[in-house]
């Protein structure tokens, strides 16, 4: 159907977005790569010089890097496990006939719309405070000592907060996938004498596999760069116990003014994210033809 005029119009009309995104990607990325090879500290302007891979060497051999890489992986891994397993369970739960299901569904989805800074402060102060937080009251009511979350288990506290925020996302995606499950297939399996557990593992779970992959890949992209929750609660501490790569690069750049080192860290973060991204783009790409 495309005529020459409409093809031309198509080019003209898609150009602004393509050019804008191209600049947004290539200019900062190019600058980051360039800075990463410089000795460049904002406190000593005019002293920039080319130093090759020294920033990378320092960044990659610093114990802070390994600590934050480990924290990043633990954070991403734990949140993924909690949200995927939890999302399947809550999704299955919401897929049943329940009184007031529409309202319940909205309540369960809500945490996803809460801004990360609010999320972090509400959890830190109202729930996890060791003296008068809600969790402290629960522990004491059950006869336990309240946990001082941000001193005793800071990373766990961050994991809980972030998992709470992303559980709705997993639930929403998995519930949508569950609702597209063909009922006849399940009924046929029931006729053949399959129990609920067999139906779950042989029919429901395979049906969900694609949605699960989507959840894992998209969450990974966002979870690799968790920032606000750490920024407003622990500031990366105590020590390095809650510093992830995103936060480490931030501290180097805007607190230590080490542009060169931070840029090298930024490039490492980009490479890590891209390893994940390759899989995601493949997956979405396959879907595009369908």
């Amino acid at each position: 159907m495309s005529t020459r005029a409409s093809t031309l119009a198509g080019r003209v009309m898609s150009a602004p977005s393509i050019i804008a995104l191209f600049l947004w990607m290539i200019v900062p990325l190019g600058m980051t790569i360039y800075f990463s090879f410089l000795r460049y500290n904002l406190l000593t302007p005019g002293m920039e010089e080319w130093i090759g891979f020294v920033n990378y060497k320092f960044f990659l051999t610093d114990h802070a890097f390994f600590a934050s890489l480990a924290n990043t992986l633990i954070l991403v891994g734990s949140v993924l496990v909690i949200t995927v397993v939890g999302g399947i369970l809550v999704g299955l739960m919401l897929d049943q006939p329940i009184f007031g299901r529409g309202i319940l569904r909205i309540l369960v989805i809500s945490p996803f719309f809460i801004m990360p800074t609010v999320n972090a402060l509400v959890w830190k102060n109202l729930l996890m405070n060791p003296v008068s937080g809600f969790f402290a009251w629960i522990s004491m009511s059950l006869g336990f000592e309240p946990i001082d979350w941000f001193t005793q288990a800071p990373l766990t506290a961050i994991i809980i907060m972030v998992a709470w925020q992303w559980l709705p996302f997993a639930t929403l995606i998995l519930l949508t996938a569950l609702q597209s499950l063909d009922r006849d297939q399940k009924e046929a399996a029931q006729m053949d004498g399959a129990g609920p557990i067999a139906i779950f593992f042989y029919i429901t779970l395979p049906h969900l596999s694609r949605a699960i992959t989507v959840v894992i890949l998209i969450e990974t992209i966002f979870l690799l760069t968790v920032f606000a929750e750490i920024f407003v609660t622990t500031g990366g501490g105590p020590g390095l116990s809650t510093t992830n790569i995103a936060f480490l690069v931030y501290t180097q750049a805007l607190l230590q003014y080490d542009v060169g080192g931070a840029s090298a860290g930024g490039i490492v973060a980009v490479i890590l994210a891209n390893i994940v991204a390759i899989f995601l783009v493949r997956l979405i790409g396959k879907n595009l033809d369908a």
Partner: protein
Amino acid sequence: MEKNFKSPFGQLAYSVFAWIVGLAIFFPILWMGLTSFKSEIDAVNMPPLFIDFDWTLENYTGILAQSNYFKFAMNSVILSFGSTVIGLLFAVTCAWAMAFNPTKRTKDTLLWMLSTKMMPPVGVLVPIYLVFRDWGLLDSRFGLIMVLFLMNLPIMVWMLYTYFKEIPKDILEAARMDGATLPKEIFFVLLPMAVPGIASTMLLNIILAWNEAFWTLNLTTSDAAPLTAFIASYSSPEGLFWAKLSAASTLAVAPILIVGWFSQKQLVRGLTFGAVK
């Protein structure tokens, strides 16, 4: 997993169980809302007070009386709407072109756009910060609108593309046969049919921009700071007034929570780029 409960009692018992789980997930938001109506003393009371406290609006009146709350709120509105409007202008035209005049490269272009979304913000924080500093864009609304717009543009193009693809081409062809010019075709035929898709794209983008915290925290100090930064300022030790914090938080999330409730079904498609239907 539609299971027909054998008895109404079974369904009732199951519903009670589901509501307990659902309320537990919702609890932090509920608790925030309740605390916002307490006095500071009641807010830290042990054991916690659920309903039996003196309800008060003093936290809300206190925060609203602080003139700078409105400044932050206004910034949030300007930033999220500004970036959404600019984004729509770019994304609608781009998605239209890709959906109705696809070329061999359209698919690759779409995937490439998505890949820009994979770039972690920390990877480009330093140059953006320096460019903003040198151009005097730090703490400016214009600068932040541009960042938010570019950050969400790939999602907007993708969402609109998936919506536009479902509009039957025959209708556009018929319009063209009847002598409609290209602008007429777009404004009078395509856009009216795409209103639901455009509306949900708009809502998703407003939600994402409203809640964005990385760039707002790093590129603003006061003038252009939105509610995300306002709330973050409560993380300092002198900001430990729980009831006030709760009221401020409630005010910060309420508008977007309501928007989210209305757009939850469309969100699945937007956030997964149509990969899950």
